């Protein structure tokens, strides 16, 4: 009966192998989650190098990747040579910045958007992460389902409909009236997340004091989303759950908030489904959802080689290729202007000029929401509260009260 904690190993990769392969080459591991679009890049790098072999370890979800990272960071060993880190828990890790190598290098100065670099710079001026992608959001939608509801299907026309959240939700009400079996958006939690990302100080203020309980903007997002599920706009499914994944194949919903990296996820989950498209618009202006960094943990055996690899992987040319593969939108200044990006189209999304659309969406982002060390924890409690209303376990008022208790508990 060995159902002990050892089973957490489900989330862990193999052991430490000293950083060299059998034929004496330096072995570098890159740990990522979801889709970074690195498969072909790594092959390319391996072909370029004689003495380095790179291997990617992919986790299915960001949560799984985060658990593994924390465990091995605490243990002081077992991390990959390069670890990808998502912005939502970046702040919590910045407090442990000693565990990561300072990657500052004259060669990479000015490579990224200013705010992307600033967020990765410690108070003493060490740069502990190279930016990969950012998550400018558009609205992805099913043109075939729009047609069923008698709505415009053309992406320019659709863009005109979703200028504000109210307009977007109103269109949703019309849609579910015409097509009652299909929800308007994929998940209440995901929609709430998109809205929270548009609040500059949501759960924590500038000094990282927790303000979630008293912030009217947070309460408004909560009230809006929970009332909309009652109106049938949501699938009431949890993002990343088995049912959520299955709903892509089952005409479960018609639209979803769509950061660049989501394009690859949709293409994978909705394999074989025709009708997906993306509109050059985001309710309430613009929004950024997620985006990541590559870090080099100081505990690794091959810190120098790992830094070289991270530098190469996050160079504009490479990020554009990753974007072409999986839609991870570049955070690199030079890449944003590059015709290879702006002229790129996506077959799965009805040939949409995804490069140009996301570049426009990035430009529309007014500010980057502040995310302190407690952001990820409070956000989980927030998402769970919304889920309880979706599932009918609690009324909206009860769920809000228990969310407040959870925030209190997290301190």
């Amino acid at each position, binding site marked *: 009966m060995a*159902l002990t904690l050892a089973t957490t190993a489900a989330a862990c990769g193999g052991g430490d192998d000293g950083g060299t392969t059998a034929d004496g080459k330096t072995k570098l591991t890159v740990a990522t989650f979801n889709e970074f679009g690195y498969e072909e890049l790594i092959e390319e790098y391996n072909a370029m190098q004689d003495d380095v072999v790179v291997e990617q370890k992919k986790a299915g979800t960001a949560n799984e990747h985060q658990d593994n990272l924390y465990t091995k960071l605490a243990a002081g060993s077992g991390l990959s040579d390069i670890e990808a880190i998502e912005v939502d828990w970046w702040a919590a890790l910045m407090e442990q910045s000693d565990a990561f190598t300072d990657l500052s290098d004259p060669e990479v100065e000015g490579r990224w958007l200013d705010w992307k670099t600033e967020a990765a710079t410690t108070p003493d001026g060490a740069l502990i992460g190279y930016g990969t992608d950012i998550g400018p959001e558009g609205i992805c939608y099913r043109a075939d389902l729009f047609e069923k509801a008698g709505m415009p299907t053309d992406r320019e026309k659709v863009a005109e409909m979703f200028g504000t959240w109210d307009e977007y939700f109103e269109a949703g009400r019309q849609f579910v009236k015409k097509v009652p079996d299909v929800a308007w958006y994929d998940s209440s939690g995901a929609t709430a997340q998109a809205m929270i990302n548009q609040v500059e100080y949501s759960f924590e203020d500038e000094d990282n004091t927790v303000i979630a309980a008293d912030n009217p903007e947070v309460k408004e997002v909560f009230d809006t989303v929970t009332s909309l599920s009652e109106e049938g706009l949501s699938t009431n499914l949890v993002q990343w*759950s088995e049912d959520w994944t299955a709903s892509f194949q089952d005409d479960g919903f018609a639209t979803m908030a769509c950061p660049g990296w989501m394009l690859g996820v949709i293409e994978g989950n909705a394999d074989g489904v025709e009708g997906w498209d993306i509109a050059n618009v985001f309710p309430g202006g613009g929004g950024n959802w997620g985006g990541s960094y590559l870090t080099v943990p100081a505990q690794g055996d091959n810190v120098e080689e790992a830094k070289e690899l991270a530098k190469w992987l996050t160079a504009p040319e490479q990020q554009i290729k990753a974007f072409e593969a999986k839609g991870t939108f570049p955070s690199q200044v030079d890449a944003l202007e590059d015709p290879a990006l702006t002229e790129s189209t996506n077959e799965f999304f009805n040939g949409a000029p995804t490069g140009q659309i996301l570049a426009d969406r990035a430009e529309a982002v007014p500010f980057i929401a502040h995310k302190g060390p407690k952001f990820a924890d409070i956000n989980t409690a927030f998402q769970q509260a919304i889920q309880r209303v979706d599932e009918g376990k609690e009324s909206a008022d009860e769920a809000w009260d228990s969310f407040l208790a959870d925030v209190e508990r997290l301190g």
Partner: protein
Amino acid sequence: MEAGSTAVKPVGDTGASVSPTGDRPRQPRRDVVRRPAWRQRLSMLDAKVSPYVFVSPFFVLFLVVGMFPLGYTAWVSVHQWGLLSGQGDFTGLENYRRVLEDRYFWNALRNTISIFLLSSIPQVVIALVLAGLLDTQLRARTLWRMSVLLPFVVAPAAVALIFGNVFGDRYGLANEVITWIGLEPIRWHVDTLASHLAIASMVNWRWTGYNALILLAAMQAIPRDVYESAALDGAGRVRQFTSITVPMIRPTVIFVVITSTIGGLQIFAEPRLFDTQGLGGSDRQYQTLTMYLWELGWRVRDLGMASAVAWLLFLIIIVFALVNLLVSRRAGSLKGVHRRPGSPKGARR
């Protein structure tokens, strides 16, 4: 052990330097005796100590990988201790107090006991019946016996993945069957009891066959002549099973009950993988104690509190195991059978 002690005896007797009457050995014999006595003493030492030396690797390993973590966890539990920031101030029993005051601890305890009861009881009962059936004259016996072990070979993560799809709330196989019959679909991830049943079924699927094989091994040691005389007295198959088989394998049943108790109270992988967030549902309706421990340690990043939970869980398991032991002893003695299985002569297979 038996062989060891008989070997020691003669050495001990002849090697006694003081005769039974208490007379000192006479002087001239002393030199003659000396060398053999030293040797004898060495071999006596050898006989007495070597068994311990031979079993010591287990205990040394146990000290290193068993006792050390236990002690270290206790040490962490009385300190402020962040997952990433490391050791802080000594805080005494503060972490225990905070855990016991947290409503989610009691929620997790309730869930753990509920899932444990739903899994362990059916598991042992079914395993017992299954073993009873496998103990009969079946065709292709080995095939049947091996096939009950198959689920055990599959990794828990894979089991959770398969069952996660079976118990999907909306697109799951179980609900498709249920709605096809014409019943309301069950919300496996939402309703407390339904989620506990789904998780218990994963655990049972994995462990029942394993327990059945252990019980089967015990059943095969029961002398067959007992059954023959019972049959002559007119006892039917069922009567034989309840009055002979079950009482006679009592020590093994106690073993199975205790191991499944320990496993049941530590259940982690199945409920953990049943939820994408990892907290056991939106209302923590299936968060078990080990998941709660994991949440404190890895989400809240407070290893001090997590260690306090680990120790509380350890104490709870000991209490449960003791209660189990008493109950299963009693249940066995009520049958009025105190005889242990006799010589293996009667065991034909």
